[in-house]
Every structure is written in structure tokens, then in C-alpha cells.
């Protein structure tokens, strides 16, 4: 570095870190989620400035980076967590940038003395990267005072405090239950610096997500199917167990299945590439979601 130590170039550090690339990718690939993207930009800016300050010797303490992602199912929490790991890695706040996604089962043991080694094993695996705890509130079960979840919580709290430069913990779950979880574990609330709330998608966003999913899988909608799909989305949103992007993915999986069956039934015909790629309106319209008078069944035999 030939720059004098009393001044630094923010633009250069930004370009060097490659964070811009990740943020742009985030913008491109994730539909909607405006508040989330804004928060991530803010966090990235904070970290970048913090990095500069450290280069000038202004702060010694590494910032607290633990986060909590709250939102309904299928709103992109895991996807964003993976990007977050990448951003933190590029800024040098975690060394390897891998994401270890766990749930209660991976942390809590089945008998006395089983939990601590299990939790520590997971933490060791996540070191140098990001530990993503999905549905974190299941760790705390107030109705059973002998539940081993408490032990995992204590170890996690200790690690979140003492090994801040070794790993970043992201807790995720539904908003209301996370609130309750933080309420009964004040230690967590004070150690989590960034709370990010994931909003539900609008119908238009879901439509766009569906089309992106299809494109990435090498499919496309027939022009009629686009309209049918938007009707499907509207109808599905009103039904129980709606899981945002995940429901859309499941719906598309079923549409692909029907498309395959249609092609197979008509197998004497010569198929073009276009035939193999196109999903027709009927493949969407036969969904139970759009069937009149049948609201109880929902579109999925098992809501996902």
C-alpha cells in the first residue's frame, strides 16, 4: 500500500472487496425483499467503514455480527443467509465463508451429557463461517424444565460472546415465535446486533419468482400459461399453509410433472426442444387450487 496511513480510499476498498458484486447479484436474483436488501446494504456499508477504521487503528473491537432473520416460511431466509456468509467473507469478517445450517436436532442431544459435545461439534464445524440456526425458538422449551435445549443455548451464548471473530451466528424463524424466544432469552437479544424482518411476497413478485425458477430450470410458460399462473398464485395465496416461494416451487414441480405426462401420453409425435420446454396453461389450470368449491384440500397434499 502506497497510500499514507492517515487517509484511505473507500471506493478502492469497496472495489477490492468484491462486495458490490454480491450485492448486485442479490438484487438481480432475489425478487422483492426491498427492506432486506436495504438492511444488507446498510450492514455491508457499516462493515466496510469499520474495516477502514481498523486499518487506521481507530477501533480494536470486532463488531458484533450475529443476526436474526424473521419471516414467514419461504421468504428467502436461508438464501439470504448464504449470501450474507459470502459478503462477510469478502469483507474479511469470517475466514472461509461457508454456511452450516442446523436445526434443534443437530444441537440438542437425547440424553444427559449428549448435548454439549453435539453443540460443540457443530460450532467447530461452523468456525470460520456462518452458523445458521433455523427455527431457533425450538431450542427453548419452557414447558419442559429438564429440556436439554437450555444447555445448547448456554453454550451458544458463550461462543457468541467469546469467539466473535471465529464465527457468526444467524438465528432464523417465524417472527412471532422468535419474539417470544428472545423475550424469554434476553441473553440472545442483547448479543444479536441485526434483526432483519423478511416481508411476504406480493402476487406480482411471486409470479416473477415463478418465472425465474422456470428459466433457471430450462422451462418456460406458454403465453396462456402466464395468465393461468397468475390466477393460480392469487388463489394459492388465499389458502392455508401458504409458504411463499416454496409453494410456488412446489406448484411448478407439479406442473412439470403434468407436462411430462402430457408429452408421454402423446409419445408418437416428434418432439421439438420447444415442446420439452413449454408448460401449457392446462398444466396449471388442472391444479386443485383452482378447482371451484374445493378449498379444504389446498394445492398440496402436504403443505410445504
Amino acid at each position, binding site marked *: 500500500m502506497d497510500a499514507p496511513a492517515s487517509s484511505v480510499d473507500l471506493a478502492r476498498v469497496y472495489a477490492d472487496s468484491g462486495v458490490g458484486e454480491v450485492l448486485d447479484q442479490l438484487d438481480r436474483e432475489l425478487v422483492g425483499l426491498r427492506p432486506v436488501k436495504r438492511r444488507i446494504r446498510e450492514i455491508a456499508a457499516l462493515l466496510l467503514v469499520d474495516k477502514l477504521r481498523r486499518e487506521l487503528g481507530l477501533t480494536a473491537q470486532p463488531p458484533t455480527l450475529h443476526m436474526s432473520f424473521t419471516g414467514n416460511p419461504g421468504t428467502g431466509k436461508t438464501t439470504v443467509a448464504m449470501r450474507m456468509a459470502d459478503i462477510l467473507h469478502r469483507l474479511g469478517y469470517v*475466514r*472461509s465463508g*461457508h454456511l452450516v445450517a442446523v436445526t434443534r436436532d443437530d444441537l440438542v442431544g437425547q440424553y444427559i451429557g449428549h448435548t454439549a459435545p453435539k453443540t460443540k461439534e457443530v460450532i*467447530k464445524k461452523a468456525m470460520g463461517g456462518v452458523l445458521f440456526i433455523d427455527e431457533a425458538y425450538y431450542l427453548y422449551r419452557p414447558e419442559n424444565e429438564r429440556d436439554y435445549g437450555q444447555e445448547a443455548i448456554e453454550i451458544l451464548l458463550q461462543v457468541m460472546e467469546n469467539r466473535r471473530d*471465529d464465527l457468526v451466528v444467524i438465528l432464523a424463524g417465524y417472527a412471532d415465535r422468535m419474539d417470544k424466544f428472545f423475550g424469554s432469552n434476553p441473553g440472545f437479544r442483547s448479543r444479536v446486533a441485526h434483526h432483519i424482518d423478511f416481508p411476504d411476497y406480493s402476487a406480482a413478485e411471486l409470479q416473477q419468482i415463478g418465472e425465474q425458477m422456470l428459466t433457471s430450470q430450462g422451462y418456460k410458460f406458454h403465453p396462456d400459461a402466464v395468465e393461468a399462473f397468475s390466477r393460480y398464485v392469487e388463489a394459492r395465496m388465499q389458502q392455508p399453509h401458504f409458504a411463499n416461494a416454496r409453494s410456488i416451487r412446489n406448484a411448478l414441480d407439479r406442473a412439470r410433472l403434468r407436462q411430462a405426462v402430457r408429452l408421454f401420453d402423446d409419445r408418437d409425435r416428434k418432439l421439438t426442444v420447444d415442446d420439452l420446454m413449454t408448460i401449457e396453461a392446462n398444466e396449471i389450470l388442472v391444479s386443485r387450487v383452482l378447482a371451484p368449491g374445493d378449498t379444504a384440500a389446498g394445492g398440496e397434499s402436504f403443505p410445504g
Partner: protein
Amino acid sequence: MRLTQGTFSFLPDLTEEQIRAQIAYAMKNGWAVNIEYTDDPHPRNTYWELWGLPMFDLKDPAGVLHEIAECRKVFGSSYIRVSAFDSTATWESLRLSFIVNRPADEPGFFLERNEVNGRSINYTVRSYAASAKPAGERY
């Protein structure tokens, strides 16, 4: 007498930073890192006690360094080594092994000469530390 076994054993003891770099190298190559300890430094004692399980799936040396620190707390006056196992077909053996902890005082070895069959001599190496006391009470 300083025990010289494994890689780097003729160099001064590795610093924490150097240990970290070696472990990072092993992980980069996909080798499973193990921590082993013993209080019997005899060169023929190849099987040391394993501390915990081999660490196959760690991505960062911090986890191993943490385990080394834990092992030192318990066996601070024993020998502790870190070894890296390569599971690739046709290798399937240790690729790297180095000592990360040694007792403060290493009395060394005694070379015993046994005269047999007239003028022939059989040699035996005995560790002073290991021959004086039972396992666990040495050093």
C-alpha cells in the same frame, strides 16, 4: 534430550500461528486432522491416544486449535501431536504429523547393550521417563 518425531521436529516449537497455518494446509488438501497424546515417547510407540474424534468436516483451523487448547489443559505435560490423514485411494495414510506440545523436562533415552552369542550385541532403547514410572505418572 529433545524428542524428534514427525515433521518440523528439528525446528523450534511451532508457534500458534504456525500450527494454524499447517492445519489450514491440511484442511485445504482435504485431510482429516487428528489430535493425539501420549506419555510414552518411545519411537516404536506408534499408536498414541486419540483426543476426541478425527476432524473430517471442519472448514477452519479454529476448531482444531480449540481442541488442541482443550487437550493441553488435560495433558499439558505429555506429548501432543497433530496428524493429518489422507483418505484418497492409494494414499490412505498419514500425510503430516507434528508435535504441538511436549513436557517441560525430557530426560531422553537410555541405550542398553546386551551381549549375546559371544561378541554380538543387541541394542534396546529405553525411555527414562517411561521406564521409571507407570503410565500416567511420567513427566
